[in-house]
């Protein structure tokens, strides 16, 4: 798993490249646990190169969602592959998290 960051004044975009499983999800958890991430208005997750996610990866997002909401930070996923989106759907997480098709739509939120 490789995570690339792109920051503007109020938005942090994390581009995920690879597979998020019980082995690699620690890296993502470390990134989302940094206190400064809550200074952003939005954290966008670019999933174009995310080829796989297991419960360990989902658990990282689940565990940070409330602290993001409490801090007024919007967490938005975009460019999600169908098979990855399907995993969110199986658990009903697509209704608890904001997932949009494109980067433009993510930025407009």
């Amino acid at each position, binding site marked *: 798993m490789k995570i690339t960051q792109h920051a503007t004044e109020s938005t942090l975009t994390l581009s995920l490249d690879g597979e998020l499983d019980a082995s690699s999800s620690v890296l993502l958890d470390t990134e989302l646990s940094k206190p400064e991430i809550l200074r952003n208005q939005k954290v966008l997750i670019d999933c174009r190169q995310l080829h796989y996610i297991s419960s360990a990866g989902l658990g990282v997002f689940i565990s940070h969602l409330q602290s993001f909401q409490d801090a007024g930070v919007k967490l938005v996923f975009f460019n999600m592959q169908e098979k990855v989106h*399907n995993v969110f759907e199986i658990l009903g997480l697509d209704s608890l998290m904001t997932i949009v098709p494109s980067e433009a739509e993510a930025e407009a939120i």
Partner: protein
Amino acid sequence: MKHAIRISCTRRNLKVVRDFVSDFLTSHALSSLVINQIVLAVDEVVANLIIHGNGEDESQFLDVRVQLQNHEFGIEIEDHNLTSYSPSSYQEPDLQEYVRIGKKGGVGMMLVNRIMDRVEFTTHSTHNLCRLYKKLA
């Protein structure tokens, strides 16, 4: 076509098992969505057995065997641990509550149960055996 592999109990081998199952299923003309679902269910059980069942002890190993019979995919995952591992007390979690309390784990078996048609855990004196089945159209 190889129908069985043995892996040591380390998280690094999760990818090895995923590729093994994916390669097996790819040769049976299934959609990428279905393949991903089955691979995910297997990954969840293998991760549980490696991490919780065997404490990531690399001297321990898992045997993984797959088959496709009468349009039903079946997989056996066996460890050789004297400690029993069986998530028999499993209950569907409340995800909104998980979000509220910031819980990191606990949705793996929810995925397995929602994806597979049958999930069986049996404990024997010298090993634990998990069997997963899914009917394929």
